[in-house]
């Protein structure tokens, strides 16, 4: 017990190790995952974040307007586990977990982070025909101007991985028929297929 | 003599009971008539004794009445005397009060029994026997009354036909009690052989200083015999059995009054007849026995599962206090002991009556089967609390006042003799007091507080006729504790003086100058002066308490606007907190309590529990051993 007495007495005369928090703000340590910041302008509505979110905190609301679809992405912090998956999976880095830990609210609304952006309708579908099963030679495949993916059939092995990974479900691949079809209306040009392709057959 | 008329009162008081006992049977099954007769008898007796207070207590008269007018001839008292000095009257009053209150309680209480005709016969016989003992001036008369009393008490113990333990308890009581009776009779016979008289006054003039081995033996026998009647240490198991089995109002008498006759006998024997209390060895013995009774019985009580059996063990524990105090042989010790005697009668009576009320209402006194009765019987619970506080010595109730005097006495004795042993006696007293408190908290928690058992949902408060005696007892508990000065002045002081003034007692019976002529009494002792090593002023305490209580009340009334509301309803919010579970019956009581204490003393407690085996032969062995040990001790140290 004697060492404890010593400890207690020294404790009495030394500076307390308490943070003076509410009176003196404290920053979260580096790498802290706090309040979600959503850069709506960068979002391409791929929906990857919504898919990977374990807590089901992310929801999307879309509204058709004349100019296009008005998409609202809603992050409910009250349901968030702050795992950071959404940010990690966002190819466009539209989601960011800030070190702001101050998430206290009296009402539900205060815990919601929202971002709205307009997804414009495609201006033209000019070179739509250019896609498909190109037969112009071995290395003739060129990236499209509108940013949609193009498949190089010479490299493609029709593994269907891209179709599986496409968040928008825009790709249809048939191994037997050796076809690779892109539904341009659905495609959001997120680039997941290009990134995932083991043969680097998809170009954007 | 202005007090001529009072001469007849004591014998009338005794005869009243005996007459009443037989007149009551004439009433047959007419309950009201029976109650009227019994009540009248008890009240007459009480008032007769109360009328003696002024002449005996205040004016210091000693009333002697010779049965059949057989006055002493040539210094030999042949007739049977009724001699009432302050000591006798003190015990007589105690008896009369307890009997009256217990009797009035019984009127209603006993209606639950099937054969309540003979009850009052036995009850009044018991009362008459006890009254006979304390007022008698004749040794053999005392023995006879002792037997009458024992007989009635055994009958009453076995009285409850529906109580399965009653016969067993009565039988054990009779067998072990017979050892005591045997001892008393043997002692009486030996004393008669020596002195050829049975008159207490004359014996006490002749015996002291003339001690021979026979007389030492006689003393040991009488001491053991009266000790047996007071249920001191090795005789205590039968007391527990008997108290537990008897109807509660009888338990009041057995514990509050019956045991006091033993104490009275011990005082008469050791302070008057043999005057052996001056010997330090005798003091040591009595104090030792007292401490042993005190501690053993209180630890036994902590282990009990029956309300009345627990109270019974406490009776002996309190008798231990009284014996200890009497063993100190100082004025303050005697006063404290007598004070505790009357207090014990009051508070233990009250507690037994509350136990009876619980039995009346619920049909059981088993602690594990009760609980939460305070909600259904608030008055009984309050009365129980008064009794419990009194017996555990919580100021300002009476138990504390007398215990405090006993502590003073023991501690002063320690200083006087320089023996640290007496200081340890104080310690034992305090520890016993705390353990007493503990066991009453156990009772409170098990019976009156805690959760109400579902089957007692329809229990009702005891009837008014049973509550009134209890309230009177509670009031007396409070008043006697509040005015120790008055108690000392009017009751304890004279009684103490009587104990220490054997010469006056002798002279009153045998004629003036008899004591001085025959023995070693120089003169009358002065009135004993009680000096205390400390102070205790209950009235001031109460006044301060009331003042501060008023102040607190005023402050809380003043702050009413800001205070939160007091709410009591029956919804989920007001249900008992069970860590979130739905409230259900779960009662922590009886054997569950005081684990830490029991765990540490498990060896001792287990041993004691096994030792109280319940086999009659074992208890007889204890009694005979006690007899042998006391005899041997007396022979060695006297």
């Amino acid at each position, binding site marked *: 017990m004697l060492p404890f007495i010593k400890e207690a007495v020294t404790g009495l005369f030394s500076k307390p190790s308490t943070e003076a928090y509410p009176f003196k703000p404290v920053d979260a340590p580096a790498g802290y995952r706090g309040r979600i910041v959503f850069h709506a302008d960068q979002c391409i509505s791929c929906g990857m974040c919504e898919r990977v979110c374990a807590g089901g905190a992310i929801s999307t609301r879309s509204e058709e307007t004349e100019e296009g679809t008005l998409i609202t992405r809603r992050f409910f912090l009250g349901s968030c586990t702050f795992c950071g998956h959404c940010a990690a999976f966002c190819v466009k880095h539209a989601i960011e977990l800030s070190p702001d830990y101050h998430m206290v609210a009296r009402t539900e609304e205060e815990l919601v982070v929202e971002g709205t952006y307009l997804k414009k309708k495609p201006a033209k579908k000019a070179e739509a025909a250019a896609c498909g099963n190109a037969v112009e030679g071995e290395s003739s495949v060129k990236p499209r101007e509108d940013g949609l993916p193009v498949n190089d059939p010479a490299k493609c092995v029709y593994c269907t991985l891209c179709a599986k990974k496409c968040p928008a479900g825009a790709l249809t691949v048939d191994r037997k028929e050796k076809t690779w079809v892109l539904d341009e209306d659905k495609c959001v040009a997120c680039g997941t297929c290009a990134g995932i392709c083991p043969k680097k057959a998809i170009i954007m | 003599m202005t007090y001529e008329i009072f001469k007849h009162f004591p014998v009338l008081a005794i005869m009243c009971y005996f007459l009443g006992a037989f007149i009551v049977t004439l009433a047959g099954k007419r309950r009201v008539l029976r109650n009227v007769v019994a009540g009248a008898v008890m009240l007459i007796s009480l008032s007769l004794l109360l009328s003696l207070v002024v002449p005996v207590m205040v004016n210091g008269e000693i009333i002697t009445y010779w049965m059949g007018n057989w006055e002493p001839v040539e210094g030999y008292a042949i007739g049977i005397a009724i001699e009432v000095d302050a000591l006798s009257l003190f015990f007589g009053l105690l008896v009369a009060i307890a009997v009256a209150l217990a009797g009035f309680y019984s009127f209603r209480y006993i209606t639950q029994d099937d054969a309540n005709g003979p009850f009052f016969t036995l009850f009044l016989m018991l009362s008459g026997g006890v009254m006979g003992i304390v007022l008698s001036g004749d040794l053999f008369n005392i023995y006879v009354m002792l037997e009458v009393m024992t007989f009635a008490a055994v009958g009453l113990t076995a009285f409850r036909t529906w109580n399965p333990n009653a016969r067993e308890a009565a039988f054990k009581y009779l067998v072990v009690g017979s050892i005591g009776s045997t001892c008393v009779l043997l002692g009486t016979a030996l004393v*008669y052989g020596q002195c050829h008289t049975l008159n207490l006054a004359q014996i006490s003039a002749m015996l002291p200083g003339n001690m021979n081995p026979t007389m030492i033996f006689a003393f040991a026998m009488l001491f053991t015999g009266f000790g047996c009647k007071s249920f001191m240490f090795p005789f205590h198991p039968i007391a527990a059995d008997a108290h537990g089995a008897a109807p509660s109002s009888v338990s009041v008498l057995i514990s509050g009054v019956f045991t006091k006759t033993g104490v009275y006998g011990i005082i008469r024997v050791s302070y008057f007849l043999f005057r052996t209390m001056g010997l330090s060895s005798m003091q040591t013995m009595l104090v030792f026995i007292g401490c042993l009774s005190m501690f053993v019985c209180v630890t036994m009580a902590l282990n009990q599962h029956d309300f009345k059996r627990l109270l019974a063990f406490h009776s002996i524990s309190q008798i231990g206090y009284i014996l200890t105090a009497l063993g100190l042989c100082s004025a303050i010790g005697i006063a404290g002991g007598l004070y505790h005697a009357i207090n014990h009668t009051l508070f233990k009576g009250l507690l037994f009556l509350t136990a009876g009320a619980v039995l009346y209402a619920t049909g059981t006194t088993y602690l594990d089967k009760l609980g939460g009765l305070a909600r259904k019987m608030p008055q009984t619970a309050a009365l129980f609390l008064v009794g419990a506080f009194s017996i555990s010595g919580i100021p300002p109730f009476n138990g504390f006042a007398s215990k405090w005097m006993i502590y003073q006495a023991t501690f002063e004795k320690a200083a006087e003799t320089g023996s640290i042993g007496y200081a340890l006696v104080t310690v034992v007293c305090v520890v016993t007091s705390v353990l007493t408190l503990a066991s009453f908290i156990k009772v409170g928690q098990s019976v009156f507080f805690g959760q109400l058992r579902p089957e007692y949902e329809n229990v009702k408060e005891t009837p008014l006729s049973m509550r009134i005696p209890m309230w009177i007892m509670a009031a007396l508990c409070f008043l006697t504790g509040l005015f120790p000065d008055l108690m000392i002045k009017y009751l304890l002081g004279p009684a103490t003086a009587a104990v220490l003034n054997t010469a006056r007692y002798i002279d009153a019976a045998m004629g003036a100058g008899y004591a001085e002529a025959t023995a070693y009494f120089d003169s009358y002792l002065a009135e004993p002066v009680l000096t205390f090593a400390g102070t205790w002023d209950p009235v001031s305490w109460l006044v301060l308490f009331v003042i501060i209580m008023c102040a607190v009340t005023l402050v809380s009334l003043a702050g009413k606007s800001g205070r939160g509301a007091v709410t009591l309803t029956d919804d989920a919010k007001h249900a008992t907190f069970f860590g979130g579970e739905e409230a259900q019956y779960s009662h922590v009581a009886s054997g569950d309590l005081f684990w830490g204490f029991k765990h540490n003393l498990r060896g001792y407690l287990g041993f004691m529990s096994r030792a109280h085996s319940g086999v009659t032969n074992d208890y007889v062995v204890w009694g005979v051993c006690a007899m042998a040990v006391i005899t041997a001790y007396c022979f060695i140290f006297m």
Partner: protein
Amino acid sequence: MMLANYIGAVALIVIGFYAMIVKHDVIKIVIGMGLTDYGLNLMIVSIGFNEGGTAPIYTFGELTSGMYFVDPVPQALTLTSIVIGACVTAMALALCVRLYKEYGTLDSRRIRRLHG
């Protein structure tokens, strides 16, 4: 002669206690109580006895100055005590009967519902 009385008395008392201590049959315990009582009575009577004394009956004709009585008081005591003893025995036996009915045994080792 008186010595024999005293020895007898003590012997009775001792036998009585012996029975109460050792015998487990409740009837025998009652017998022991009785024996103790009788021993005591014997002792009390012996205490009052005077060698050669006559009965303490006061008759004018036979009383001469040389005569003396045995002490009548112990005899009175003994009578009382015998009566009491008889009562106690009766009571105890009555209880024994009830005990046998309730417990089905007379063994004191099995009549121990109240213990601890």
